[in-house]
């Protein structure tokens, strides 16, 4: 069997888990193995049937008092315990922060290799050898890897495939698995949650006005703020900007910042280094404002204005005001 470890937060399935089920369905077909799922800390009927809609035939559930909320060690041990009992041929999870973390806990506990953020997985003629293509550098570079393992532990690259339900939904069998968990595993269970004010965030904004080193100072972001506010969007920035302390890290777009997906990203004074690009490339459209026509951001953009951003941004704002008047 191929076992997919489902990520959920207090009973709501994460998109990464749906992606893993989709990925897993294809892999299971290739292996000629049934697709099953593991549900940790919940035996919720809705989650079970959702897993079925993605093709999972059996959903194994583990419920225990240390699994009441998320905890990487408790989840990792519960999943490892299920794997010891069920002996799946391979185990998969979504490549989210939690998905990768729980898989690493499983790998440490079972002393098996783990391959994170896979794009393609091929059984290399059996015998415990697998050909894998995976992401490095947050997806800017790919690695073909060879995995030798009697039980591959994998995660699927986050948002590298769209979650798709199975053509024929299965009404899965839910089956409880007894897991005996040491109470000390509670030491890394979530103790508290703080909800901050919700609003448009960088990752959900329909418009992002990006500023890079070319903006020049924290004060010079004011016109970008004004334009973003007018369009119901948010200001984003490059790492050069956060490193200079001009903007908080929560505004940073890129490999070690936020992945943005706006209708349009207006990137001004940003050269478009690969680590920035990887966070910007899912934007539906990109407009670059740069004095350098050769800048990578310009070359990769749909539209560009080759001029000083300090003049262009206010001119755009004025033009919008004029048309709205």
């Amino acid at each position, binding site marked *: 069997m191929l076992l997919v470890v489902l990520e959920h937060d207090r009973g709501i399935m994460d998109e990464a888990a749906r992606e893993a089920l989709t990925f897993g369905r294809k892999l299971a077909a290739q292996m000629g193995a049934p697709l099953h799922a593991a549900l940790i800390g919940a035996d919720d009927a809705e989650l079970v049937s959702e897993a079925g809609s993605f093709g999972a035939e059996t959903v194994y559930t583990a419920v225990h008092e240390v699994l009441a909320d998320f905890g990487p060690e408790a989840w990792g041990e519960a999943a490892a315990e299920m794997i010891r009992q069920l002996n799946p041929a391979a185990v998969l999870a979504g490549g989210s922060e939690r998905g990768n973390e729980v898989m*690493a806990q499983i790998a440490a506990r079972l002393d098996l290799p*783990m391959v994170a953020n896979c794009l393609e997985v091929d059984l290399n003629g059996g015998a415990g050898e697998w050909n894998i293509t995976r992401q*490095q550098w947050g997806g800017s570079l790919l690695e073909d890897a060879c995995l030798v393992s009697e039980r591959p532990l994998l995660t699927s690259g986050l948002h590298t495939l769209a979650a798709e339900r199975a053509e024929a939904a299965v009404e899965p069998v839910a089956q409880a698995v007894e897991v005996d968990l040491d109470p000390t595993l509670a030491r890394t269970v979530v103790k508290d949650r703080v909800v901050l004010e919700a609003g448009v965030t960088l990752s959900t904004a329909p418009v992002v006005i990006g500023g890079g080193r070319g903006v020049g100072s924290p004060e010079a972001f004011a016109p970008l703020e004004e334009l973003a506010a007018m369009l119901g969007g948010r200001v984003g920035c490059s790492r050069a900007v956060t490193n200079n302390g001009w903007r908080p890290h929560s505004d940073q777009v890129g490999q070690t910042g936020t992945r943005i997906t706006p209708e349009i990203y207006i990137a001004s004074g940003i050269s478009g280094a690969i680590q920035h690009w990887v966070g910007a490339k899912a934007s539906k459209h990109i407009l670059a404002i740069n004095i350098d026509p050769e800048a990578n951001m310009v070359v990769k*953009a749909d539209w560009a204005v080759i001029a000083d951003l300090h003049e*262009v941004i206010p001119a*755009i704002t004025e033009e919008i005001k004029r*048309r709205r008047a």
Partner: protein
Amino acid sequence: MRILCCVKRVPAPGAKINVTDDGLAVDASHLGFATSPHEECGVEEAVQLTERHGGEVTVLTLGPAEAADQLRYAASVGAHHGVLVATDGSAWDPQRTAAALTEAIRGLEAADGPFDLLVFGNESADSGGFQVGVRVAYALGRPIVNGIKGIEVDADAGDGVVRARREIDGGFEVYELPMPAAVGVKEGINLPRYPTMRGRLASKKLEIAEQASDAEPGGQSLVRLHRPRETVTETVILGNSPEAAPAVVDVLEELGVV
């Protein structure tokens, strides 16, 4: 507090990542090197914790002899000790890396006593295996949580407690790890300082303890690196001056975002 940070030396590519002819490494012949960003913040966090609570920071790296540069950089921003587990520069898989780091930490702890806190990055910037910190912490019996963007140490609670924050959609979670503990941190936890003149001098004097490791390769091996296929875009130049503004707003109107 005794804190240990694990950092990795990575190339710092610009607009493109080029791969060597054999496909086994990033072509760094024209590139500088850096400490993986999450880990750079890890060092800063450790230094700040010792500034608040007293103690010392040891920085540990596994890599080629040149990785000593990253240890010296850490010393220039306040770390006290540097340890290098030397390799021939080839890519080590996560299991092998974790085994070697575990062995090195065991040795350091046997000599000078346990570390109160082990600090890792959430993931390394280049290979991004998302596991070395978890494997090391598990092998050493320490609790670990990844994705950490805020740390407070309460030294008075029992043997000490690390209160750690992790960002989630629309807020954050709080964890309380009993010390000795481990964390995987992310960039944004702090703003790393720049080296001072005094720091630079200290870094030159840093004595680096060098070790070798005979850790066995794990199950994953690198076959070839390659760039993902990219779609080529024809960029439409809307203008070369602020006079382009009406054309820009036309585009925004077309997209329906005005």
